[in-house]
């Protein structure tokens, strides 16, 4: 076997793929039966950026220097940047393969905009601002892409927060159909050593429709009209995978199906900055009486020690003297203060007074390095059963209609790995593999040396 195809399904979750629906997904099941499968433990945090890049580089977020989509550029209060491809300094698998004259087809892998050259072709992913920019390498691929997709290549769904759920489902299907069509077109028309695509549809449908599918979701209603939306879509994706597999020569190519993280029910959101205010860690210049986004200009920095970001997890930042422009925490008190905040965060309760099981991590404890500007704490509210809401003026800590995004599903720590390789080639069969093991495994598969600074291990 000398070639590899990876089909990435962002957010594909093991409890659905393996436990609930495997028998309904014949093409995925065939790959499972032919080889190995298991959970794929994601990065901390289990978020699309940086998870896919960690997968392809075997470097953790601390080494990569970005901890989510948006990151602090410096210790100023408003210096933020979007971690797009220009900030990725570590080599991905396809960079190593290019160096050895192996040709790669890369489509839709997150964090690849703006595109960088390689030996092969690349279509960037959803951080592409629009289709007018150059989002392919080489440039000429862009011209062919729409036609290859059957008319219109769709980078990502539009207007995700629409109430028009049927329209949203249609968009997700259109996007998926177009991406698989385009991928199949390029895949069969050239000779690739390594080919990888990532489809975002599963992530999108999870976040928008989880409440209709999960009987344990507080908003679930039996017999609702979207009850099978996620199930039907998984079957649709499986059929598309079958069409791609029909193009694969099994004598020379093995196939992986992977995801960057899983999904689970979201109980609600914790208003993290409201919590900081109640604990006396955050003070606003003027009281806020109606919900609004927290802008740093609203904060009285002379009386503020912490603030937090909203999202599927929370990043917490401290206002440190001689570090932040108006910092007040003396550096010699930083460690003790952080321990205090950790203790209090981990004691956060729900409205019934029950501890929700929050975990707060120090970056230096969980990463090999802390490049860039790491948060002072990485926080899984309720162990990711709850998301973080950054808004203020909410008059409550517990929110059940999210302040910015969909509230149906949060990310779970385990994604999936399926590989139709002879199981006897796997050094150790496990229930859960590590996302960091993917890049070393791919390089070993191609007979290449694994760089010493990759933190994962080859599975073969």
């Amino acid at each position, binding site marked *: 076997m000398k070639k590899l195809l990876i089909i990435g399904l962002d957010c594909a979750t093991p409890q659905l793929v393996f436990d609930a629906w495997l028998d309904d997904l014949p093409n995925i099941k065939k790959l499972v039966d032919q080889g190995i499968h298991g959970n794929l433990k994601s990065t901390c945090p289990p978020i699309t950026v940086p998870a896919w890049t960690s997968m392809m580089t075997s470097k953790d977020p601390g080494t990569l220097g970005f901890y989510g989509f948006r990151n602090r550029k410096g210790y100023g209060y408003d210096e933020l940047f979007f971690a797009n491809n220009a900030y990725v300094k570590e080599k991905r698998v396809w960079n190593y393969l290019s160096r050895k004259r192996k040709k790669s087809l890369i489509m839709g892998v997150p964090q690849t905009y*703006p595109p960088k050259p390689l030996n092969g072709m690349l279509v960037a992913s959803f951080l592409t601002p629009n289709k007018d920019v150059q989002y392919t390498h080489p440039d000429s691929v862009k011209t062919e892409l729409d036609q290859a997709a059957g008319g219109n290549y769709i980078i990502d769904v539009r207007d995700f927060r629409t109430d028009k759920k049927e329209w949203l489902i249609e968009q997700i299907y259109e996007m998926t159909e177009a991406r698989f069509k385009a991928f199949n077109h390029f895949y069969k028309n050239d000779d690739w050593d390594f080919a990888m695509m990532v489809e975002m549809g599963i992530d999108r449908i999870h976040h928008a429709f989880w409440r209709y599918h999960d009987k344990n979701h507080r908003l679930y209603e039996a017999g609702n009209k979207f009850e099978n939306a996620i199930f039907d879509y998984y079957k649709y994706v499986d059929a598309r995978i079958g069409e791609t597999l029909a193009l694969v020569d099994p004598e020379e190519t093995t196939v992986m199906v992977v995801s960057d993280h899983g999904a689970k029910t979201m109980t609600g959101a914790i208003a993290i900055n409201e919590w900081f205010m109640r604990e006396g860690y955050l003070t606003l210049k003027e009281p806020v009486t109606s919900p609004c986004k927290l802008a740093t200009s609203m904060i009285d920095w002379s009386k503020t020690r912490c603030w937090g970001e909203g999202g599927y997890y929370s990043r917490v930042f401290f206002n440190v003297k001689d570090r932040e422009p108006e910092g007040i925490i003396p550096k010699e008190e930083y460690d003790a203060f952080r321990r205090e905040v950790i203790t209090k965060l981990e004691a956060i309760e729900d409205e019934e007074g029950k501890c929700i099981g929050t975990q707060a991590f120090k970056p230096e404890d969980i990463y090999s390095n802390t490049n860039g500007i790491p948060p002072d704490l990485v926080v899984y509210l309720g162990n990711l059963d709850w998301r973080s809401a950054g808004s203020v003026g909410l008059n409550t800590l517990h929110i059940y209609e999210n302040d910015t*995004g969909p509230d149906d599903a949060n990310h779970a720590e385990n994604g999936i790995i399926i590989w139709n390789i002879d199981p006897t080639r796997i050094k150790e069969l496990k229930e859960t593999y590590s996302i960091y093991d993917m890049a070393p495994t791919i390089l070993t598969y191609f007979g290449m040396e694994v760089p010493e600074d990759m933190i994962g291990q080859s599975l073969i």
Partner: protein
Amino acid sequence: MKGFTVWFTGPAQSDRNYLARMVEESLLERGIRVELIDDESAGKVLFEGLGGSPEDREMAVARAAHVSEMLARNEVIALVSLDAPYREARESAREMLGDFCEILVKGDAGGETFEEPAKPEVLVDMQADGEDQCVTTIVRTLELLKLIPADETSAEYSGDEEEKITKRLKDLGYI
């Protein structure tokens, strides 16, 4: 992008061949078409039958230059690294090939003849500067000479683009 020749020159004990391979890989990583002609790979066939006499060394240079010319006119970069101690032969190659960048890799001649080039475009010292810095210097020089495209991947979105991306990520719940 037009083809051209990068000629790695250095005495016997230099890391010339290794550095040429690293530059080759660096250019391949950028999706650039490049081929390496050195003593250890293509050279085994290309320089078959040639010995160490001045005449044979001159013939080796001529053969490498001939192949480089063929590669360059097909828009491929030729990296040449061979034991070519005589300046006149290398200057003939330079004159013949036109688009030519010479890299002098410092090292110990070990008592053997080695005539340094008069004006190499790049001077590197692997022992002093390390492999990564040497490769970076060479590749950056090729960019500055406009022989290869510069790596100009910009990180910044326009204001309008950033607004769209922010809205999309908020809608999706990521921020």
